């Protein structure tokens, strides 16, 4: 099997799995899930070997070539995100099995779940910015279906609100893609920087694309849809949305700002704008998280804050001198946030399952009743706060380091403050959980299936910090930021 088969396999395997999941009876579904998981892991490992030995991998679907067909492409950044997706999806598979069991909702959940995996894989391997639009729409529609699975009026309202926001955002993105195409006659993000002509249409395109993606990734003033959507969804879906879906539109923004537009637009001038938005998001999101009375809403607001970090990274990565480190830091931070946040939502799902509610004040003594769940919550919290040796710490450390090296020390102040605020909201929950005396009784015992996936992810989030060097090297493989002048094989622009 060559890489020409391996790359399309990543989206195709879960796609077929999703189709099978519609017809296969629930008690035989594990066969499909097992096949999909091993298929994807096998392809990822072989791709990884090729990536490390030969550098970025490119393949033309059906041999059509760039102007008509769609090229698939994987570099270190894409590989890292594909691996993150696989790791989280496997953990969420186990968790969802324990959460949904064989109920009627399970029937509806699994096809959507596998389609999400297919869409995310497709997004991270596609080389075509219009194809990115299609995966964005797919992910948006799938999220809506998944949120509505909760079946409560609040969840329907959240799903509708998200759908309207997501569609509006994608239309802006599509309009931007149209402008890019009219400017350059090309849609391939690896070579676009050589084709884009500087001028008003490039500015308008970048503006439209950025506005659409900011709405979709819930950057501060446009975050209104996120907390209700992430808090009202069933717990496995919340983990999926907060850990992975948010990264999809962020990934596109990253490709646009660091790969596509730097040649035609002086992107570094826009850096401070992102920095300010990100900084406000960190402060606002953390303060809102502190004010919440519901555990899941608190975690959702924490996502708003953590997205702020990603955009502060943006401010730093625009400058040529700090680009390398900032790119490594931002992808690494996104990955460790994904693991930690999924673990937090999984723990909150176990809390809801056992208590029947997620009011933070009602969790007194839960550390005694649910020690394993609260332990997972605390460990994941370590990474969210950014304490050493967690992945969150390494990400923030790289960020502060880059900021100081560039002489922009003020971007180092906000993450430090954000870390303090994160500690405040995580410890508020731990504090109430640790309170001795009148521990509220559990409504239901919680099965181990809801606990150990959360443990696994929380521990990975912490270990990422200890084993950070290798992932950071991988992220850097084949990035045009490092080798400005990457050309497609056999075709000069």
């Amino acid at each position: 099997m060559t890489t020409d088969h391996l790359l399309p396999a990543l989206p195709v395997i879960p796609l077929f799995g999703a189709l099978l999941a519609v017809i296969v009876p629930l008690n035989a579904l594990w066969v499909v899930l097992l096949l999909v998981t091993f298929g994807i892991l096998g392809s990822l490992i072989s791709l990884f070997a090729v990536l490390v030995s030969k550098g970025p991998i490119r393949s033309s679907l059906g041999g059509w070539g760039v102007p008509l067909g769609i090229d698939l492409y994987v570099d270190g950044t894409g590989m890292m995100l594909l691996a993150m997706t696989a790791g989280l999806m496997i953990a969420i598979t186990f968790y969802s099995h324990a959460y949904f069991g064989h109920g009627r909702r399970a029937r509806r959940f699994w096809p959507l779940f596998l389609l999400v995996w297919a869409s995310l894989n497709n997004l991270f391997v596609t080389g075509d910015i219009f194809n990115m639009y299609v995966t964005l729409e797919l992910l948006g529609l799938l999220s809506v279906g998944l949120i509505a699975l909760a079946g409560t009026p609040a969840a329907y309202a959240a799903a509708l609100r998200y759908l309207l926001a997501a569609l509006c955002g994608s239309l802006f993105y599509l309009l931007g893609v149209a402008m890019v195409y009219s400017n350059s006659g090309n849609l391939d993000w690896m070579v676009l920087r050589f084709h884009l002509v500087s001028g008003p249409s490039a500015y308008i395109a970048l503006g439209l694309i950025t506005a659409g993606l900011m709405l979709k990734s819930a950057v501060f003033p446009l975050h209104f849809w996120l907390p209700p959507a992430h808090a009202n969804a069933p717990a496995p879906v919340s983990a999926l949305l907060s850990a992975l879906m948010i990264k999809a539109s962020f990934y596109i923004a990253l490709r646009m700002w660091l790969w596509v537009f730097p040649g035609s637009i002086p992107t570094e001038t826009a850096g401070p704008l992102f920095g300010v938005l990100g900084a406000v998001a960190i402060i606002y999101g953390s303060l809102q998280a502190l004010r919440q009375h519901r555990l899941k809403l608190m975690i959702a607001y924490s996502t708003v804050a953590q997205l702020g970090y990603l955009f502060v990274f943006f401010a730093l990565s625009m400058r040529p001198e700090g680009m390398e480190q900032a790119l490594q830091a931002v992808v690494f931070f996104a990955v460790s946030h994904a693991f930690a946040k999924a673990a937090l939502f999984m723990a909150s799902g176990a809390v809801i399952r056992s208590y029947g509610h997620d009011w933070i004040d009602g969790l007194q003594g839960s550390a005694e009743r649910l020690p394993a769940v609260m332990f997972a919550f605390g460990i994941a919290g370590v990474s969210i706060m950014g304490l050493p040796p967690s992945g969150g710490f390494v990400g923030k450390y790289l960020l502060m380091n880059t900021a100081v090296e560039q002489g922009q020390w003020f971007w180092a102040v906000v993450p430090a403050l954000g870390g303090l605020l994160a500690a405040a909201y995580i410890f508020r929950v731990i504090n109430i959980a640790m309170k001795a005396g009148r521990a509220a009784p559990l409504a239901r015992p919680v099965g181990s299936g809801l606990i150990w996936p959360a443990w696994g992810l929380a521990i990975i989030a912490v270990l990422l910090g200890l084993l950070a060097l290798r992932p950071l090297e991988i992220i850097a493989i084949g990035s045009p930021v490092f080798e400005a002048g990457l050309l497609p094989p056999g075709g000069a622009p």
Partner: protein
Amino acid sequence: MTASLWYALIGAGLVTLGLHSLTLTPHVLRKVIALNIMGNGVFLMLISLARRLPDATNPAPDPVPQAMVLTGVVVAISSTALALALLRRYYEASGRTHLPEDDALWGIEEEPPGRFAVMPDGEDDDDH
């Protein structure tokens, strides 16, 4: 003014109208229609680009934007269907056609559901 510029301007107008309605009307059905109008504006702009691009040696219109519009139309139809189905569910479950924050924003008190409204029967379909 060329024909393609004219189409592009109309497209931009439709996008603006749609965006206006999407943000300022509280009824979700109108928001869905507004999104469709926005989408049509975007498609019109894409089509106008298809006419403009080809060079003098090759007068045929560019196929790529047309393929993009076809894909976009499919996406728009499916998302509209999903939005309508979801709106029905929302209405059945809550008796409302506005999102809560829109009512708060405009100070509207939505009329109670009419006599044809299907109210939820409280059945939990989780354990079937």
